[in-house]
């Protein structure tokens, strides 16, 4: 199979400015809005924007979605090959290139299968039907007598026409109608199979797979220098000394933006060190005091919206509980710091980038640089997994500034480890306050308030320039404002509205309008913390009601699919109602390690993948160390495109979430960010990774649902609930560090030394109001 790699020839072709054109945007016909088309077909309506049939019978597929390590390019190839009835090996994928592919905005929010996959399914079915019609005319038989297999159309009498023979006559420069019905799932041969990822063999053998591997002729190497803290101004720097260093081609200074370009990479790194040493900075606002971070954040200006409300009377005998949960700033912490290449030549700029959205990046870069979008081409090449908005876009803008200073020569800019850790936009610190009441084994009241900074300050904002480097130019640009996002997607309020069937509930989102610490989109946005809070509190309510946590959830779910994933995970884990094995080693032997299991459940965004998780934890009360030996997950992502790919996403989310939940928080003091490498931002490592068992519930007749962000929230809650089950104590502030665990277990343990409580007891941290 042709892996969708960028070849040297393609880079050079790109430099030559070869740009294919096709109609992109829906046009207004007589002032009428165009007919609704499914998925991204609606905004990219020409069939040739998506598919090309080549003379050799191969197929080129164009998608605006990009590979982030989630396997999307393989899944989209499967969908296209399925509908076209061609072998998967004859499909070449072109993704994320403003010169060649459709504009599908950002690859984010677990929407690629729904948006791009739907477009390719409908376009594929339509192009196949067109090819069959052409073959019918050529062979002089009725179209409905023809059979298609592997790109060859056969008549009942045995005569055949191949797609390649029809390539010259099939006219795909026309608007899609979406009238050709796609295949019924029962006929799928490629979709639904664990097809191996097309990018993996190259990555395992050293092929050029990443933007870091792009090498352009005559390429120079850049490095940049950031201020010691947000907003500081560059007063002076010894440019002359740096310019005299070996290999240095240019020192680039524009206001407080500072960078260097050198012939060799190590020369650029050495020059950066001297720039750091000689730069003098001043100003920049102090960061919040980490000692009372959450109170300070809640005191900042915020916009409050009630996003869901339902009223009913509360029984007089209801038992009322309140609790506050917190999640710190957390980093994407990609394993590779961000990287990009750029070349300025004859007034045109070409950028190689691992941005999640090449079109929004282009539009914003054009505004920041005072250029026309048509004079900029952004070509996606993979980076390391990003898990949201990290430094990818920022490094692309930085390298454009460097390349502008050395016109005609391409520049590669690799951010250093501390550039990424200290300057990426983090996942926002959040506070969730929940108040609920139970009566007769049912939740009868529920009020959920979430405070959060923005989770979306990506490029593409109409009112601001969301590119880090631009804020430090002499002609400084301003970022866009924090914005509310409509439900059900939401942002800080993603998954804040519970899906449980409560007669009375109110959900309120307090969007903090300021950015004392830089934040933007990180995998799941607010859903990770909101699900952690909702599902922790469900366990607290279940305990107050004296009902098993699994049974309690099943009593409040609305639909059969929710029930099915919770039951599936309980079955996989062999969950026993009222189970408690606090002081055993799992085989009935006494142990000083406290053990327990907990469940977490959510339907991502309340409309995407259903995911339930059970975690088993071991808590060492002396050290405070929490270990998670096993995790079970059950997922319903609708129709499954690639089962192995889906398992990979669910399990990866489980493990990453476990790392967030037990270990991760960005450290800072009032003078700046302190998390600058893996020592002061540690993540989960191999010896501590749990066994993960995943059950998939396939729904071939249901819409495919995004799954890349489904398991993070449920995993956090399952671990926190398991901790409470094991210790009788609840920790409501993430992460569950040994210090926090020791503090929580400081007082004598309840129920554990003698006879384990049947259900986790409510400790003093929960205010029983009534």
């Amino acid at each position, binding site marked *: 199979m042709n892996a969708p790699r960028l070849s040297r020839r393609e880079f050079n072709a790109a430099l030559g400015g070869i740009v294919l054109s096709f109609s992109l945007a829906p046009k207004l016909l007589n002032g009428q809005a165009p007919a609704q088309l499914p998925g991204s077909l609606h905004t990219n309506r020409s069939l040739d924007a998506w598919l090309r049939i080549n003379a050799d019978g191969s197929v080129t597929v164009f998608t605006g979605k990009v590979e982030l390590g989630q396997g999307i390019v393989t899944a989209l190839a499967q969908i296209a090959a399925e509908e076209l009835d061609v072998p998967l090996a004859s499909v070449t994928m072109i993704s994320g290139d403003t010169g060649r592919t459709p504009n599908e905005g950002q690859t984010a929010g677990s929407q690629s299968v729904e948006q791009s996959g739907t477009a390719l399914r409908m376009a594929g079915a339509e192009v196949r039907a067109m090819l069959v019609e052409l073959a019918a005319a050529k062979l002089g038989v009725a179209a409905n007598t023809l059979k298609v297999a592997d790109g060859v159309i056969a008549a009942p009498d045995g005569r055949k026409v191949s797609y390649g023979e029809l390539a010259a006559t099939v006219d795909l420069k026309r608007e899609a109608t979406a009238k050709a019905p796609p295949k019924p799932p029962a006929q799928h041969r490629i979709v639904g199979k664990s097809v191996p990822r097309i990018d993996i063999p190259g990555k395992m053998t050293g092929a050029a797979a990443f933007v870091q591997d792009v090498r352009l002729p005559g390429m120079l190497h850049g490095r940049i220098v950031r201020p010691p803290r947000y907003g500081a101004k560059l007063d002076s720097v010894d440019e002359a000394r740096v310019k005299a260093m070996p290999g240095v081609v240019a020192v680039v200074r524009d206001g407080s933006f500072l960078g260097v370009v050198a012939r060799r990479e*190590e020369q650029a790194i050495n020059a950066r060190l001297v720039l750091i040493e000689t730069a003098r900075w001043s100003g920049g606002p102090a960061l919040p005091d980490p000692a009372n971070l959450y109170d300070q954040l809640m005191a900042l200006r915020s916009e409050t919206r009630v996003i869901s409300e339902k009223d009913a009377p509360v029984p007089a005998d209801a038992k009322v509980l309140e609790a506050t949960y917190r999640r710190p700033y957390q980093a994407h912490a*990609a394993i590779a710091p961000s990287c990009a290449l750029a070349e300025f030549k004859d007034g045109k700029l070409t950028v190689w980038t691992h941005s999640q959205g090449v079109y929004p990046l282009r539009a914003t870069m054009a505004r920041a640089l005072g250029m026309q979008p048509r004079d900029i081409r952004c070509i996606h090449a993979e980076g390391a997994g990003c898990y949201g908005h990290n430094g990818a876009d920022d490094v692309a803008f930085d390298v454009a500034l460097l390349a502008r200073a050395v016109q005609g020569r391409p520049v590669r800019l690799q951010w250093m480890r501390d550039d990424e850790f200290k300057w990426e936009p983090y996942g926002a610190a959040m506070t969730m306050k929940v108040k609920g009441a139970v009566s007769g084994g049912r939740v009868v009241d529920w009020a959920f308030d979430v405070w959060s900074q923005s989770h979306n300050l990506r490029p593409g904002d109409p009112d601001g320039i969301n590119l880090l480097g631009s804020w430090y130019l002499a002609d400084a640009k301003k970022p866009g404002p924090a914005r509310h996002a409509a439900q059900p997607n939401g942002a800080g309020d993603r998954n804040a509205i519970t899906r449980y069937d409560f007669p009375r509930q109110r959900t309120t989102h307090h969007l903090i309008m300021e950015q004392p610490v830089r934040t933007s989109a990180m995998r799941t946005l607010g859903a990770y913390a909101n699900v952690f809070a909702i599902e922790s509190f469900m366990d607290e309510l279940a305990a107050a009601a004296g009902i098993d946590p699994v049974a309690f959830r099943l009593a409040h779910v609305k639909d059969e699919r929710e029930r099915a994933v919770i039951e599936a995970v309980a079955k996989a884990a062999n969950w026993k109602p009222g189970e408690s094995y606090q002081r055993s080693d799992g085989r009935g032997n006494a142990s000083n390690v406290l053990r327990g299991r907990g469940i977490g459940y959510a339907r991502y965004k309340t409309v995407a993948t259903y995911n339930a998780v059970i975690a088993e934890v071991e808590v060492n009360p002396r050290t405070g160390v929490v270990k998670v030996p096993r995790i079970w997950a059950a997922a319903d992502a609708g129709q499954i495109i690639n089962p192995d790919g889906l398992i990979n996403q669910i399990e990866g989310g489980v493990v990453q979430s476990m790392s967030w939940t037990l270990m991760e928080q960005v450290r800072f003091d009032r003078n700046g960010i302190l998390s600058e490498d893996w020592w002061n931002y540690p993540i989960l490592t191999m010896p501590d990774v749990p066994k993960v068992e995943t059950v998939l519930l396939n729904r071939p007749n249901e819409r495919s649902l995004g799954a890349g962000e489904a398991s993070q929230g449920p995993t956090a809650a399952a671990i926190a609930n398991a901790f409470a089950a094991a210790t009788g104590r609840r920790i409501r502030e993430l992460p569950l560090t040994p210090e926090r665990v020791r503090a929580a277990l400081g007082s004598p343990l309840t129920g554990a030394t003698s006879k384990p409580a049947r259900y986790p007891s409510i400790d003093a941290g929960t205010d029983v109001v009534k």
Partner: protein
Amino acid sequence: MGINLKVNGVTRSIDAEPDTPLLYVLRNDLELNGAKYGCGMTQCGACTVLVNGAVRRSCVTPVGSIEGNDVTTLEGLGTLDKPHPLQQAFIDEQAAQCGYCASGMIMTAADLLIRNPQPREAEIKAALADNLCRCGTHNRIIRAVLRAVKQNVKVSL
């Protein structure tokens, strides 16, 4: 000037300062993609190569300090057309999400198999403890090494 390095069995003369980290020589002078920049301070393992058959973090190894030594990168194990059985085990287990850490994982596993051809699972985890993976693909990576162990894959350089 010129430093002689034997990389993947071929002796190459490198025109670089002796204190240049091996990583940049491999990536920029020899255009090898296997070793990756991740942190530049030995914390993550993405840049791992073998020097005389033992793991080395290429990001902090001055090229002048290993003149004349045998360097093996991911490319020295096998190729896309003919992967080494250890690489094939990673492909068979689909042991990647983004795959950026894969080269370091494979080279560290190769080092383990040279020293201990039949490691147990705990030994594999311990050997890979200093190689970071951010996508949560750890279990597949462990399964890939276990697959290679089960197949009696030999790593000899």
